[in-house]
């Protein structure tokens, strides 16, 4: 079925198709319409789920945690300050290995106050033990949401997934979407069967204390699960392709990178603009490409190295900043390429903070400055 919907509505449809059973949320722009649409779907009888309006984002994630340990498939969504307020629960959920999906409609953080798109909110949560997938289109938001449940619930992974979509640019912008049928989704994503759950007949303990003797083993297990998630993310993307005819490259999505001398690394929606610029520069004969990181965690070290093999320069466009250093993705890319025999130079660009438009001219300027740099 084809419909004209925005990114938030796309996510709401995916949550319905995934048969999420408990949704808890607190309103925040630009996320609110995701959970509103979910509530409307429940009201219309299109979705069988419990929807709880809670008193804060911290409580939203806490409620999802509670529902998930009893074996429910859960969902929440937030943005910016809301995500920041969830920070304590982010670690709690990932540490307890609760597979859940949360949509983050990316928005800058205060102060100063802003409601517009940048990636500072989710990038700041890079180290919370959540898988982070960044999408480029509303269609990909829908598709990735379905994939995310399958990834999170995989027994080898058991790690929550943050589905990051740029505020407004994706959350509030309509495109024509293909909405999969419930039958197909049910075959792709079977019901969640937790290995351990709160069941009054077989008592278990969640949120245990761990002394220095065993705490590291929990953390090591988390790290190993993240490493395994790399393969799972790729495999789920391929499986999705077999079912629905769409795929997104697994961990990274290349565009004209195979012989590119300059590769621009991006996250999220800006990639579409970058592709246009690549096409126009290619017509002039410039060998340029764009590599979109779909996953920021786990970080796709091997895929990244492979994709920039021919590059002399790797430019990184960051819609965030680690103050006192540089854009976070730039640091990650440098670290991933360190140790190669002839590594390309990496040049970072921070742009588009707080919703500032990144225009074609800006990206063209990035490419040109990379060609002109004597590195």
């Amino acid at each position, binding site marked *: 079925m084809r419909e004209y919907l925005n990114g938030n509505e796309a996510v709401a449809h995916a949550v319905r198709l995934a048969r999420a059973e408990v949704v808890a949320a*607190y*309103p925040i*722009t630009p996320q609110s319409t995701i959970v*509103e649409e979910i509530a409307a779907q429940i*009201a219309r009888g299109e979705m069988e789920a419990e929807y709880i*309006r809670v*008193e*804060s984002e911290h409580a939203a994630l806490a409620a999802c945690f509670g529902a998930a340990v009893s074996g429910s498939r859960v969902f929440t969504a937030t943005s910016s300050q809301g995500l920041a307020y969830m920070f304590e629960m982010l670690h709690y959920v990932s540490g307890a290995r609760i597979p859940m999906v949360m949509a983050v409609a990316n928005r800058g953080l*205060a102060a100063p106050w802003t409601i517009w798109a940048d990636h500072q909110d989710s990038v700041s949560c890079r180290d919370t033990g959540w898988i982070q997938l960044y999408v480029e289109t509303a269609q990909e938001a829908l598709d990735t949401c379905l994939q995310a449940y399958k990834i999170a619930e995989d027994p080898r992974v058991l790690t929550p997934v943050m589905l990051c979509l740029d505020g407004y640019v994706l959350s509030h912008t309509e495109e024509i979407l293909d909405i999969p049928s419930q039958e197909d989704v049910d075959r792709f994503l079977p019901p969640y069967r937790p290995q351990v759950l709160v069941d009054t007949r077989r008592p278990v303990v969640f949120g245990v204390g761990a002394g220095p003797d065993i705490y590291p083993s929990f953390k090591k297990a988390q790290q190993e699960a993240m490493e395994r998630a790399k393969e799972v993310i790729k495999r789920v993307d391929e499986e999705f392709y077999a079912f629905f005819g769409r795929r997104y490259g697994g961990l990274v999505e290349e565009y004209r990178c195979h012989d590119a001398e300059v590769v621009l690394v991006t996250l999220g929606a800006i990639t579409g603009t970058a592709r246009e610029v690549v096409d126009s520069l290619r017509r002039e004969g410039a060998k340029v490409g764009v590599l979109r990181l779909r996953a920021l965690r786990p970080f796709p070290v091997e895929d990244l190295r492979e994709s920039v093999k021919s590059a002399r320069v790797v430019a990184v466009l960051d819609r965030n900043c680690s103050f006192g250093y540089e854009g976070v993705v730039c640091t990650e890319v440098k670290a991933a390429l360190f140790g190669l025999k002839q590594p390309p130079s990496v040049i970072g660009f921070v742009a588009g903070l707080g919703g500032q438009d990144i225009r074609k001219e800006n990206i063209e300027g990035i490419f040109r400055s990379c060609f002109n740099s004597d590195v």
Partner: protein
Amino acid sequence: MDYLATKYLRPRKIPSTACSGCGLGQIHKKVVKAIDELGLDVGDVVWGTGIGCAGRQTFATWKGDNFAGTHGRVYALATGLRIALPPNKKIILTVGDGDAFGIGFNHLLNCARRNVDLTVIVCDNLGYMSTGGQYGWTTPEGYRTDSSPYGMWEPNWMQGGRDVLNILREAGATFLARHTSIEGQEAVESIKKAILNKGFSLVHMPYPCVTNFAERALGSRRPAVMYKWFKERTVKLNERVDEKALGDIYFRTGIYYDASNSRPEFAEALRNRVAEIQRRFR
């Protein structure tokens, strides 16, 4: 421009970014009028704001010092500021219902318990109107909002024998009042008393939201419909009414509780206590 606005507010911020028909300006003006009638100067007041309609529309309008808090946390920020500021400076907070009675309620209650010298003006548009009109903590039972299209079904802080002001009184607040924004000088007088109380004061001020609340709940964006609704539901505390006949939410207005200056104020008590302990070591 209005004399009060010229004297106390930043011209660049007036008129505010409120939707047309919004009742928030009525509250804003009453607060400034109360400040004026108390003879306070721009330098005597530090003005804090939360998030949402109230936060956005009143933020940085004050000619003097302003600060904006994170959602629900402005009471905690103000507590810190109270300790640092000279005791004669006033702290006035204009916040929303979601900020005060929802996400920030814990901090608000603890400010009341400590009796921190703050004047909190809760500008209540009956839900989360700036995010599109979701139901909140004071949304009347049965009313439609964006997130309660079949009517508000959760218990609120206002009906069913509950009153948020009673909770605050139990928590230790020393001045509590309620007025709707459509009231006149009596509301200004209450705000003046609130400011003069050296302790935790809160004035709960429901006001009309034409754009989101009225559209969903009353089926009209005509300001007259929304204002009539408010007028019919604004009832003085001592006024005798047939409550059954009202059969709906109504706002009992007036001073609920005035124990001004009856309990030690937090920052002052803290300073005295520390001084006393330090004396023991001298």
